[in-house]
């Protein structure tokens, strides 16, 4: 699903964020990316979403080298993945339904498809009864479930989550992880950055540790 071949990233200001990364994530895997602050975890995810391009090396997603993908093709790469943010990124003046539908509208789905798909996804994350709620009326955990729904609604093969539980309390975090686990069981590959050792231990998934831009531990 994802293959890094000798990938390095040096930011224009000279910061070396990734150094000679080699990694293979198979289809359907669930991977925790850990490491101390500033080690390069976000840069690693951003190079998958083509938010950043590697300075050298190749990145393959579903056997396509995305490091050379022309800009006009980037949106179509992103449609293959769902991105979950630490700060949820919900649109304040849209209700839950519209926030999720937004991802479908932005990629040209019809209202009919939206009416079928959004309630299904909201039910999946346990928010069926909150369709009409505004983001401010939801708890952090609920907001992140909306964020997750939005990432899932276009049926991606890959979920990219950068500290999705960073802004919510541990019990809620656990629920989000359960959800991700369920989604993973349906065949979606998941890449998640986290600082929470406890969660990593509890779920016992593959762990990739990044230290100073290098992978120091990549079990399996």
């Amino acid at each position, binding site marked *: 699903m994802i293959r890094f071949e000798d990938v390095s990233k040096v930011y224009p200001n000279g910061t070396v964020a990734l150094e000679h990364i080699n990694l293979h994530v198979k289809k359907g895997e669930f991977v925790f990316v850990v490491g101390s602050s500033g080690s390069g975890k976000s840069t690693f995810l951003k190079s998958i979403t083509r938010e950043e391009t590697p300075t050298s090396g190749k990145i393959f997603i579903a056997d396509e080298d995305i490091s050379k993908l022309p800009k006009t093709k980037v949106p179509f790469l992103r*449609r293959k993945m*769902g991105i979950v943010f630490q700060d949820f990124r919900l649109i304040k003046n849209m209700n839950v339904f519209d926030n999720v539908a937004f991802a479908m509208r932005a990629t040209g789905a019809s209202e009919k498809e939206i009416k079928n798909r959004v309630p299904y996804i909201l039910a999946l994350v346990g928010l069926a009864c909150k369709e009409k709620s505004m983001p401010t009326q939801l708890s952090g955990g609920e907001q992140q479930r909306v964020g997750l729904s939005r990432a899932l609604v276009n049926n991606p093969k890959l979920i990219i989550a950068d500290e999705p539980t960073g802004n919510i309390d541990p019990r809620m975090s656990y629920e989000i992880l359960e959800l991700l686990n369920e989604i993973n069981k349906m065949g979606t590959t998941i890449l998640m950055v986290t600082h929470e050792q406890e969660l990593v231990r509890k779920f016992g998934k593959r762990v990739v540790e990044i230290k100073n831009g290098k992978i120091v531990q990549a079990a399996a």
Partner: protein
Amino acid sequence: MRLYSVRYLFSEGVKNVWKNRMMSIASVGVLIICFILTGVFTLLSISIKNTLKSIESRNTIKVFLKDQVETEEAVNLESKLHEIDNVASCRFYSREEAQEKYKEQLGDIYEQMKERNFLPHSYYVTLKDLSQYKETVAEIKELPEVDIISSRVELFDKLTKFNRFISSVGLVLTLVLALIALFIITNTIRLTMYSRRQEISIMKSVGATNTFIRIPFIIEGMVIGIFSAIVASFSLNVFYNFIVESVRKNISFFYTPVLHNLVFYLLVYFTIAGIVFGVIGGGLSIRKYLSKGVYGK
């Protein structure tokens, strides 16, 4: 692009206008002023051109004879006038005929004039070839008996110069106003974009194409442009008809034609201009946001 996307993007564009209504109103105001001024100058130029044409097409000139020319002398002038190549025909008006003709306008003076008629003898001369107009007028002026010719050559020249002036002032003004309008529209749309920056970054993260992200903002510009065009067209039409009426009453030589379907033409031109402004404005303003990252920080 599919129909429901078109509908969605269109409604998003209209929403943009409404959400950012203070700036939208400002843009519309500036655009209307821009359109109206451009229109006024264009219409003025058209009117002058029409006046010029109507002067040219009146192939009759009035030749007034000097005061001291006696009636017999004046009558004899006819053959001299006929000798001039370009003269098709001429008709003599004696000072008595003139007095009768202007009886009404003269009023009280008419009575006094019975004692001393100060109107000159005159000829109405018709020309064969209008392109020789100026030359022929000059030739007639050479005749010793001739005093003045109401040939309108001077008026013609003046109007031609005035028209050139109006056209160039109009052109410069239009360009300056167009730049201002573009600046205002671009900034209006930038403001909308700023208030929607989070949505833009989310759209990018879920894989919306740049075109798709851009369209509502272009539509926003177009709506502003089209709305301004409609208001400007109707206002200018009313204004023009009002001017035509008062000019008709007051300045007889100035030929302001009733332009049929004026609203229609104004609408077409202004709307096209409005759309162009909107598209350019929308296109210019979004660049910055499209180059920003998904994380938008």
